[in-house]
């Protein structure tokens, strides 16, 4: 019988568990992984280079498409960088709206992660459950920006417009009876804030439901407990952030440690893991969804009680309202200059980090005083996490690589940029 030797296995780029376009070259000894070499860049679009050729505001939309599962948090990092360089502060209401949508985005991201991660490991039902709740949150995106995913809602100086007073309603059709429509529209009869408030009331029970399916599930535990253990020291050395770092037991969260927007006014806890394996990271993310729900609730209460402007009044940065523009010469000039040339950002550089659902997302911006950035560097959390895959997967079975990729929570929009 011939001796079994090491062989190389090509995983992806078209593999359902590769979460997009990951190509992994795995060196195997039997079924045990000896070395994993991820080949990335199949989705490289040169976002950073494109941003250098456009006025600042035109790149906000590109940020949505970086990590296309947590759109508004990316925008927050970029917009905050511009604001810090220009030395402007958005109105308080805009900051609350940003925090609320950051947390909505966090739930959106974690729901997608949970659904696909469980699907990879073999639990089909989770995917359906998670997408049910995602639908409601995506409707919030749509209500506020007109777009279900790529919102381009945050702008330097605030947010594009205030929260709408009505929600879109379902209409009876061949697939939805009048009774169904009535039931579906019940939570949509009020404003967007009423709808979100209703969601925050429903959501904890939904998380309980996910947990009943997974947390004590024997198969789930067999697939995740002890897989990809990262010690706190190694996590720091490899640059892991976000739930990956907290799963290893390091209580580090930028929302608490280096608060931005109005996170210092929010009451929430940071969940921390113990063993640093895939199961702990799962528990951390599940608890983060509950904490995000708490933050959203606090924002809704504040936003209901405190109306006000959502954009700064400086028309050198933010365009004037439409009606004003039609009657006032000054406003017309401002509008024209902003949309043909943009605004110039003072010379300097800034590194603006936000706590992204996946880790530390940051935009490093260098300006030479022009209306276009000189250099934009996006610091993607997933890029660093994927670079740790080699070390995490060594000695594990091929099937565990799938668990690990799920546990890393990677999205190729941000890794390849």
């Amino acid at each position, binding site marked *: 019988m011939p001796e079994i030797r090491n062989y190389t296995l090509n995983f992806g780029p078209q593999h359902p568990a590769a979460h997009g376009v990951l190509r992994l070259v795995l060196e195997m000894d039997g079924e045990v992984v000896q070395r994993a070499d991820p080949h*990335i860049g199949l989705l490289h679009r040169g976002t950073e*280079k494109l941003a250098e050729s456009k006025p600042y505001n035109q790149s906000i939309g590109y940020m949505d498409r970086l990590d296309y599962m947590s759109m508004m948090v990316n925008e927050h990092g970029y917009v905050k960088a511009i604001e810090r*360089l220009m030395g402007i502060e958005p109105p308080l209401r805009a900051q609350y709206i940003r925090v609320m949508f950051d947390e909505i985005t966090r739930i959106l991201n974690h729901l997608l992660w949970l659904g696909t991660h469980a699907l990879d490991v073999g639990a089909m039902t989770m995917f359906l459950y998670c997408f049910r709740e995602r639908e409601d949150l995506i409707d919030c995106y749509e209500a506020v920006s007109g777009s279900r995913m790529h919102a381009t809602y945050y702008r330097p100086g605030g947010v594009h417009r205030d929260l709408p007073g009505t929600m879109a309603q379902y209409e009876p059709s061949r697939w939805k009876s009048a009774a169904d429509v009535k039931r579906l529209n019940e939570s949509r009869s009020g404003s967007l804030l009423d709808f979100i408030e209703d969601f925050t009331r429903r959501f904890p029970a939904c998380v309980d439901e996910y947990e009943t399916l997974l947390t004590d599930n024997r198969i789930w535990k067999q697939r995740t407990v002890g897989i990809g253990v990262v010690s706190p020291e190694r996590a720091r050395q490899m*640059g892991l952030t976000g739930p990956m770092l907290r799963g290893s037991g390091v209580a580090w969260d930028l929302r608490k440690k*280096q608060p931005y927007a109005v996170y210092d006014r929010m009451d929430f806890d940071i969940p921390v893991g113990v063993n640093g394996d895939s199961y702990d990271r799962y528990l951390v993310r599940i608890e983060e969804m509950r904490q995000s729900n708490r933050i959203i609730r606090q924002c809704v209460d504040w936003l209901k009680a405190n109306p006000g402007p959502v954009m700064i009044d400086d028309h050198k940065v933010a365009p004037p309202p439409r009606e004003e523009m039609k009657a006032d010469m000054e406003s017309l000039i401002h509008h024209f200059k902003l949309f043909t040339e943009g605004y110039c950002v*003072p010379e*300097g550089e800034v590194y603006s980090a936000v706590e992204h659902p996946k880790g530390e997302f940051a935009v490093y911006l260098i300006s030479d005083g022009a*209306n276009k950035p000189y250099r934009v560097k996006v610091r993607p959390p997933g890029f660093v996490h994927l*670079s740790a895959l080699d070390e995490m997967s060594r000695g594990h079975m091929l099937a565990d690589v799938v668990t690990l990729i799920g546990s890393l929570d990677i999205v190729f929009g941000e890794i390849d*940029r």
Partner: protein
Amino acid sequence: MSEKLDRLTACLEEKIKGRIRSLRQACDELTLEVSAGDLPGVAGTLRRDPELGFDMLVDVCGVDYSAYGVTEWTTESSTAEGFSRGVEKSTFGRFTFDETPPASGRTGPRYAVVYHLLSLTHNHRLRIRVFCEDDEFPTMPSLVEVWNSANWFEREAFDLFGIVFNGHPDLRRILTDYGFVGHPFRKDFPLVGHVEMRYDPEQRRVIYQPVTITPRVLVPRVIRKDHRYLDDAAEEKSADA
């Protein structure tokens, strides 16, 4: 915030005395400049010294300073040329692959590598900028041994800017295509690129050919030095001093 930065500044001045080229505070951030030769030693101190304790390298970023301050539109005096002055080929969004961009007149080294450090124990950040000494063949000592997270970031800077990291264990391209020629984030690399890929039905395979798209950037690059920006710049300078 600034109190914390002052403390860190004092600490750095003591610990890496003589190796600091400049240490500036702006936008609540501290930027340290050191020479490429000193970098590994400084990095080791920053990581191991308990008072500094930079246990994480969060970002490594290459920068090409060759087009710094290049504009396409005169804003300080009026000209008789109308809008056409805005669409002249000048910065990288506008020239095609067979043209060369204008020089900026900037003196000093062209490439720099910028590192962002984070200390989880002390909760502070630091930016290190290191210029590459040779513009023709930019090199930089690798920091993979100090912080393992530098591995992929250095590969990225090599891929996009052509900065060679000495001592890197596995310096391959990472983001661009297999067999890619050139370093796309350099300022003299055109935005439209050099080659495009398509399927050729006659040869029945995928082929590369010179790009057929024309560069099209509509908004000119402008630096305005009117009172709004001058005030800010003057304030910042006085704050630094």
